[in-house]
């Protein structure tokens, strides 16, 4: 017998070892439960991270745009209202009011990680007899590329944007029969037409987007669209993407802009993410509950089976507290060992699933995210569940009257 262990631990471990079948079955049960939690959590984290990465590397997390232009009825005198029918004015392309100041204010906010002013508008791309309607985004490459990772989507050429350059999508390139180093004639309703050189062709993963989206230097867009020195949006990325909406509201409160967060513009996606999180929490909760009841059931039976042993231990001088701890430790050990077995099971299942399930193009369906924190949290949760579940049986054991227990 190991002398370095306190009595409670020796007794708990010996009792577990003697009830081999019970112990084995309950640990298997816990392991399956924990395995499901690990598998589901890691899978959902992976899928979610994948979705978010896809959504958030191709668009800013908050966009600042000019306030809507509205028409107000005129009043003749205080208290006198005209029964005017007010039409909504057409929305001209206008610049964000004093956008440099807005940008400076954004720079001072610690929650914001990247800021990029953009001049966007519609134009016509013409090459020979072919012409296509396009969306022009005038950007500052260094800051914009940290928000939307344009270089990641390049299929041909290099993502260079000097004043005479343009980056176009694959579909537009196909429609216009253009490729890298070819020249395009670009013309907007206002402003000056320009001739631009294609430096890169992008695949943004969406046909419509590949047909329309083009990128030019900010100054080129300003002169092309006839708004010199102006920007139509200020794009932001933030530290905590889930706080984007509240941050957007704060920005709206203190600046003369409309702030659209990715949460508001992708409401559907965000609802899906929330639903996944909720369902994951529910799964965890119910698995933890069934694990807890399993442990409690096994220990209740064990207390009954061992009532004689408990009586003898009490007669030998063991205190109620010691008997209580013997059973609490059993619960904790069951939870902990089950959690380790379950983590191995869940991680193994995930690795198998990850290698077996591939997308049509052979790339991974979801990134394999086996985070250390998940395993630590699961082990702690399972151990705590074991301890809590052991509470009722342990108290019952501690309350046993030694005389009655020994007599059986």
């Amino acid at each position, binding site marked *: 017998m190991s002398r370095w262990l*306190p009595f409670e631990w020796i007794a708990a471990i010996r*009792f577990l070892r003697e009830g081999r079948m019970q112990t084995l079955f309950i640990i298997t049960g816990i392991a399956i439960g924990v395995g499901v939690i690990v598998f589901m959590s890691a899978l959902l984290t992976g899928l979610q991270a994948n979705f978010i990465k896809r959504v958030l590397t191709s668009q800013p997390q908050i966009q600042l745009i000019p306030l809507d232009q509205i028409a107000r009825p005129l009043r003749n005198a205080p208290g006198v209202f005209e029964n005017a029918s007010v039409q909504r004015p057409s929305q001209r392309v206008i610049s964000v009011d004093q956008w440099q100041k807005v940008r400076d204010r954004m720079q001072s906010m610690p929650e914001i990680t990247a800021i990029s002013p953009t001049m966007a508008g519609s134009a016509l791309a013409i090459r020979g007899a072919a012409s296509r309607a396009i969306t022009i985004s005038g950007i500052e490459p260094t800051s914009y590329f940290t928000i939307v990772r344009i270089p990641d989507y390049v299929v041909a050429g290099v993502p260079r944007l000097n004043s005479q350059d343009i980056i176009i999508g694959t579909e537009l390139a196909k429609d216009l029969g253009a490729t890298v180093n070819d020249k395009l004639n670009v013309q907007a309703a206002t402003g000056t037409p320009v001739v631009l050189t294609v430096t890169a062709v992008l695949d943004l993963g969406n046909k419509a987007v590949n047909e329309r989206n083009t990128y030019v230097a900010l100054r080129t867009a300003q002169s092309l669209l006839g708004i010199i020195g102006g920007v139509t949006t200020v794009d932001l990325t933030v530290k905590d993407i889930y706080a984007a909406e509240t941050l957007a509201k704060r920005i709206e409160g203190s600046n003369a802009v409309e702030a659209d967060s990715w949460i508001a513009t992708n409401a559907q996606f965000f609802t899906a993410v929330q639903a996944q999180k909720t369902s994951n929490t529910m799964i965890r909760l119910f698995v933890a509950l069934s694990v807890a009841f399993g442990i409690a059931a096994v220990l209740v039976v064990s207390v009954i089976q061992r009532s004689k042993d408990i009586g003898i231990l009490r007669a030998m001088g063991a205190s109620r507290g010691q008997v209580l701890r013997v059973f609490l430790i059993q619960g904790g050990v069951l939870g902990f060992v089950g959690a380790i077995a379950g983590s191995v099971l869940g991680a193994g299942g995930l690795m198998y699933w990850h290698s077996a399930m591939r997308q049509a193009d052979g790339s991974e369906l979801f990134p394999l995210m086996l985070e250390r924190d998940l395993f630590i949290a699961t082990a702690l949760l399972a151990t705590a569940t074991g301890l809590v579940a052991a509470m009722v049986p342990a108290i019952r054991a501690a309350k046993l009257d030694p005389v009655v227990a020994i007599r059986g």
Partner: protein
Amino acid sequence: MDDPVLRLDRICKAYNVGLPSETKVLHDVDLTLKRGEFLALMGPSGSGKSTLLNIIGLLDRPTSGHLFIKGQDTALLNDAALTRLRGHTIGFVFQDHHLISAFTAVENVLMPLLVDAEFAGPDIVQKANALMARVGLAKVADNRAMNMSGGQQQRVAIARALAMSPDLLLADEPTGNLDTQSAGGVFDLMREVNRESGTTILMVTHNLDLAKRCDRIVDVVDGRITA
């Protein structure tokens, strides 16, 4: 120490007190055990022997009367203090040995020393092994208790009862389930312990031959001590 190891003063025990089914099991029992005495407690089944033994062993409380262990009135002690006094002073040997099956023989002997931090020390394993040797079971010390013969199990139980060097050893029909030869061996062992260590022993038995070999015989009949 002039106090007797054990003194019972008008001990009464009744069950279902205050109910129509109230049963009195013990009536004004007076009994004194001097240090080093080996006493046999005899009496027919249902006479209250076991109840008396449980009260003496601090496993049960009397309805009235006082129980003194080494001069200390146990009526004044709470549950934790009783557990501690029991753990330090009283060793038990039961009729049905009551070894813990999850442990090996020597671990059963070690148990009373492990449950109390005051006994903890690097030498307790040696002490347990020495006790196993003393009861003649050094060779099978690491066997599971369940894999031993009845006589061997009872010897392990005696070794366990002696582990914390008790002042008083309570034996409830220790030879009741054994054949004559094993019973004689177990009794001889207890007699030897009594002589060599001066341990006071109170043994409940139905075996008149063994009882006659004790220092004194006390008969319990209908909850009263008659001789």
